[in-house]
């Protein structure tokens, strides 16, 4: 009787074991999530996912737009320049609907002005003083700390997200002491003056960021829009270096000035085509506008110039391995006002993983 009870108990328990031994379809298989094509991905990273972007932008500034939107070719006057822009962005999925992020950048950019030569002639000699000028911007930018929340639904064809963040003025924006030099001294009054002004990167004050994104997918085609607004938290104070040239040696002195950064609007609209699971090709259009703000010169506040730039960017995203993607885009300026108009190539290596999941 006792044996029968045991057999009955086993027969009763075993089916339950078989029923529950079938594993649940593993929706959180990390390789599936890591290789998710763009047209099936939500706007934020998945829960537990870490995504690190490291990018490099090489920009050639051969022309700029003036206040009337007319294109001025800088290469013809020898005042064209190049940007080297490095970018790091770290994202972490707190949940499937909330993402935390931090990003910063490093820039190196030198802009030459038109060289000028001053000639004075006497009966016996001609004295020539040539002045070359370069403005260099170099250094790390401020760190942006942000949080993004998206709709708490599984992504099928529509998604919407909102981002809030702040640029922490970690770069401590401040003009560094210039490194002017006098060179090529041929006579007492014939020489070359090389003016070298040095600026650092960053805003110098906290800057708030508000953004929203929306994404629509129809089979292999997707449309993504993004609106970003940046505004300074308060006025900033910085210094401006000036100099006197005395007996071919520079004496520097700094003057403090106040400024209020302009507000900035950024609109992106991109159309994507998922050619295969590992290849997304898209075209992005970017509209950037700044307005408001002022800068103090000699005790007077002067309104910052309003700027506007429209850029067209053909891009692709390529899945190389489950945790590695390469993104590349080329930027072509189309229209603008009071803005530099660089052509650029931007390459990003994107590393993703779920460090806390097997």
């Amino acid at each position, binding site marked *: 009787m006792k044996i029968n009870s045991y057999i009955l108990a086993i027969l009763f328990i075993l089916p339950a074991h078989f029923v529950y031994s079938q594993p649940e379809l593993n929706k959180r298989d990390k390789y599936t999530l890591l290789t998710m094509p763009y047209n099936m991905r939500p706007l934020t990273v998945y829960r537990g996912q870490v995504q690190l972007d490291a990018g490099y932008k*090489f920009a*050639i500034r*051969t022309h700029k737009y003036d206040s009337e939107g007319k294109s001025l070719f*800088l*290469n*013809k*006057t*020898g*005042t*064209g*320049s*190049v940007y*080297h822009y490095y970018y790091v962005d770290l994202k972490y999925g707190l949940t499937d609907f909330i993402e935390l992020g931090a990003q910063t950048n490093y820039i190196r950019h*030198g802009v*030459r*002005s*038109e*060289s*000028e*030569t*001053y*000639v*004075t*002639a006497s009966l016996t000699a001609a004295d020539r003083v040539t002045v*070359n000028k*370069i403005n*260099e911007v170099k250094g790390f930018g401020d760190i942006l700390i942000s949080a993004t929340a998206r709709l708490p639904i599984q992504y099928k064809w529509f998604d919407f997200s909102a981002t809030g963040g702040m640029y922490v003025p970690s770069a401590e924006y401040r003009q560094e002491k210039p490194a002017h030099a006098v*060179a090529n001294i041929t006579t007492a009054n014939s020489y*070359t003056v*090389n003016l*070298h002004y040095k600026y650092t990167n960053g805003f110098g004050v906290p800057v708030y960021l508000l953004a929203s994104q929306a994404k629509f997918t129809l089979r292999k085609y997707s449309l993504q829009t993004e609106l970003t607004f940046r505004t300074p938290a308060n006025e900033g104070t910085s210094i401006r270096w000036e100099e006197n040239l005395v007996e071919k040696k520079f004496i520097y002195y700094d003057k403090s000035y106040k400024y209020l950064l302009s507000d900035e609007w950024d609109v992106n609209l991109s159309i994507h085509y998922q050619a295969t699971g590992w290849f997304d090709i898209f075209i992005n259009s970017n509209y950037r506008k700044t307005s408001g703000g002022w800068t103090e010169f000699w005790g007077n506040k002067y309104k910052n110039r309003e700027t506007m730039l429209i850029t067209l960017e053909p891009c692709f995203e*390529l899945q*190389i*391995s489950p945790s*590695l993607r*390469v993104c590349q885009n080329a930027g072509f300026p189309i229209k603008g006002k009071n803005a530099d108009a660089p052509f650029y*190539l931007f390459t990003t290596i994107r590393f993703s993983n779920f460090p806390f999941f097997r």
Partner: protein
Amino acid sequence: MKKYAHIIRYSLVFTVLFLPAVICGQVEKQLTPADIKQQTIVTEPVTLKKGFLRAGTLMNYRIADKYFTDKGEKEYYTSNVWGSKSSYNFAFQYGISDRLEVEFATEYMNSRQESQTSEFIAATNTTRTVLLKQKGTGIGDSYLRIRYQIVPENRHRVSVTGNISVGIPTGEKNPTDIRSAEKYDLPVGSGNFTLAAGLYTRTIIYPYSFTGSVNYVYNFSGKKKFNVTDIVEKEFKPGNIIETSVGINLHLNEWIVFSNEINYQHKEKGTINDHYTPLMPLTWAVSYRPGLVFQVKKFRLGESVTIPVKGKNTPADPLYVVMVQYVF
């Protein structure tokens, strides 16, 4: 136990009989010509297989922005000259045998230099604008190269390949179309023959390949005009060059390779009319070149950036290279 003795015996016989079959059953994969043509820069033979032809082009682009001084410091060019240089290199490689390859390469050059400066003349209280506009376009120099696998890689773990190349000065060496001291066409050729010899070694530990090379370039004397105002050509001899490189290439997947190379180049001083000249100083540079190479069947597309890390009297700007190749 005795009862099962015959079973054990049969098992032993079967084991002895079938074991060689199992061992010999693993065969080396035979590569068809189509497979060979689709191999990546990691897995392809060091030299082309017999009868194979590879045609390719390299597009280089560089902007003059910074340079390494004679003290090794990186500085901006001070005057406002916009200089850009691009070249389109066309190369054809042919496998004479499985170990011997011949290559012919030539290039189309496109160099530009533009600037605008102002001159204020106090005596007359006038301003003069000086415009400088120079371009150099046309066929540049050409190269003929032979590569031979001294230590073939199908027999050894590490292969060693020797190469000899001749540089032929097919490009225009003098300034042409001279309209003024500021407006003329730049030369696109070096004006002298070169002879180079070197060794290249490689080992493959899939998915990696490790490479190393050393090359010596001997520059012969030549004659050319160095300034637009020169009436006669001057005899010159550029310094000889020694180049070494080490590299690691990694297969990110079956058809994408992440290439990495560190390169060192040292060039001796050059002479004009047997005298050392500041126009051809001693130069050296250490550069890093990362790149991505995509292999789509017989078609290969690559892009890389040469980043000068340290140097002396050399440009410090990145050089962008886009490569397209096809194996016939």
